[in-house]
């Protein structure tokens, strides 16, 4: 084995290879033996971990794309420019792999394009989500493509894509507003199934606002990981602007989280749900509200005041986890809460394995892109050209 080969097979890459190999086996089982062979899904629980985590969390955590590009190109905060490409890359990969994960969850995956080309259910929220996500994946691909074109030396195509930046950013914000909220609206159809502490006629608003927190937190969290693992790929501009991006986004996240906390309290008051707080579900709800909404909000605020990057980074981890906790609670923990324990859903190990496989695919692809294409640095031939 040569020196380069030895260098390649370090612990991280070996673990990645094992997960990818295991994931391929599970993928074969899923498509050869059917969805029942690998999952605990049934008629009572048709949506499980793949929807609750891969889709709900994936879409929310990919919100960094529209949050960052809107800040930079629509609100003129040019000092966030170096954060746009990494955020767009993450968002594009997030959405692309949401679609990949959806193929596992659909009983007839080959019918994925049906709502768009065969049978449009224009009165269905799922149709709206499907349309928005498919359009937004395309928008994100074009927004991300200049990095690939610069890498491949395709100057003309790159210039065309760059010229489309502003209309694409506007489209991105419009589409995100629509489908982020619609994902919450999907649960409006099940008032009897979702626990009253989470069920609300304002769920679309909650999902949209929390997606902004997810986006800002994810940009900070991803920046932290990139600084640890991909520091060598960052140019001077990126390194210089990194702290400003973290503090600016932390300030935004802190204020949005505080607002989110208050509207959740208003919702409890409007529906008179106080009595549920003293139950087991109430405890879960309070952990979500205080541990993953108020706490990160205060930590972000203290981090911004003290200019303490470490506190901001800790808050970003809580912010990201908070979105996962919220989406898990809505789609699994508090869903079908009145069913007896024996009929409740718990994901099988193989479902968890496929979710880990999808996350590993995202990380591997992100590493492939960022170690080759000008994402964390500016291409020498296009300095200050975008």
């Amino acid at each position, binding site marked *: 084995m040569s020196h380069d080969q030895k260098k390649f097979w370090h612990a991280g890459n070996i673990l990645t290879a094992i997960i990818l190999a295991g994931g391929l086996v599970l993928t074969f089982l899923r498509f050869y033996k059917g969805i029942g062979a690998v999952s605990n899904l049934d008629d009572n629980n048709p949506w499980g971990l793949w929807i609750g985590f891969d889709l709900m969390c994936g879409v929310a955590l990919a919100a960094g794309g529209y949050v960052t590009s809107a800040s930079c190109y629509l609100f003129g905060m040019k000092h966030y420019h170096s954060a746009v490409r990494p955020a767009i890359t993450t968002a594009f990969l997030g959405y692309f792999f949401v679609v990949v994960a959806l193929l596992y969850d659909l009983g007839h995956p080959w019918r994925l394009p049906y709502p768009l080309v065969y049978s449009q259910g224009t009165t269905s929220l799922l149709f709206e989500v499907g349309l928005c996500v498919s359009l937004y994946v395309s928008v994100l691909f074009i927004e991300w493509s200049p990095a690939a074109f610069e890498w491949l030396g395709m100057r003309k195509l790159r210039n065309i894509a760059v010229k489309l930046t502003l209309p694409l950013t506007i489209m991105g914000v419009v589409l995100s507003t629509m489908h982020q909220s619609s994902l919450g609206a999907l649960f409006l159809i099940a008032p009897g199934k979702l626990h009253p502490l989470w069920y609300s006629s304002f769920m679309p608003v909650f999902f949209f606002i929390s997606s902004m927190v997810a986006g800002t937190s994810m940009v900070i969290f991803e920046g932290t990981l990139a600084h640890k693992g991909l520091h060598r790929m960052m140019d001077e501009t990126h390194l210089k602007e990194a702290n400003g991006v973290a503090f600016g986004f932390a*300030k935004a996240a*802190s*204020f949005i989280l*505080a*607002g989110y906390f*208050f509207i959740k*309290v*208003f919702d409890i*008051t*409007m*529906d*008179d749900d106080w009595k549920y707080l003293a139950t087991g579900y109430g405890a879960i709800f309070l952990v979500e509200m205080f541990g993953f909404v108020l706490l990160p909000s205060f930590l972000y*605020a203290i981090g*911004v*005041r*003290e*200019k303490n990057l470490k506190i901001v980074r800790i808050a970003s981890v809580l912010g990201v986890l908070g979105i996962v906790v919220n989406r898990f609670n809505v789609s699994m923990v508090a869903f079908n809460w009145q069913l007896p324990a024996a009929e409740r859903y718990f994901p099988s190990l193989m479902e968890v394995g496929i979710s880990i496989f999808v996350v590993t695919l995202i990380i591997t692809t992100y590493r492939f892109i960022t170690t080759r294409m000008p994402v964390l640095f500016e291409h020498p031939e296009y300095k200050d050209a975008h």
Partner: protein
Amino acid sequence: MENLIYTLHDFMLHTKTITYVLMGVALVSFVGYWKFLTGREEKMRKY
């Protein structure tokens, strides 16, 4: 308190009264929170 709620109107009166009070509290708190959040930022010179 629950014994006093007989109609939807009673319910709405009960819940909205509390909500409006909390909204007032929230609006005032937001100003304070914003001051706390931005308190140590350098003031922008406007002259």
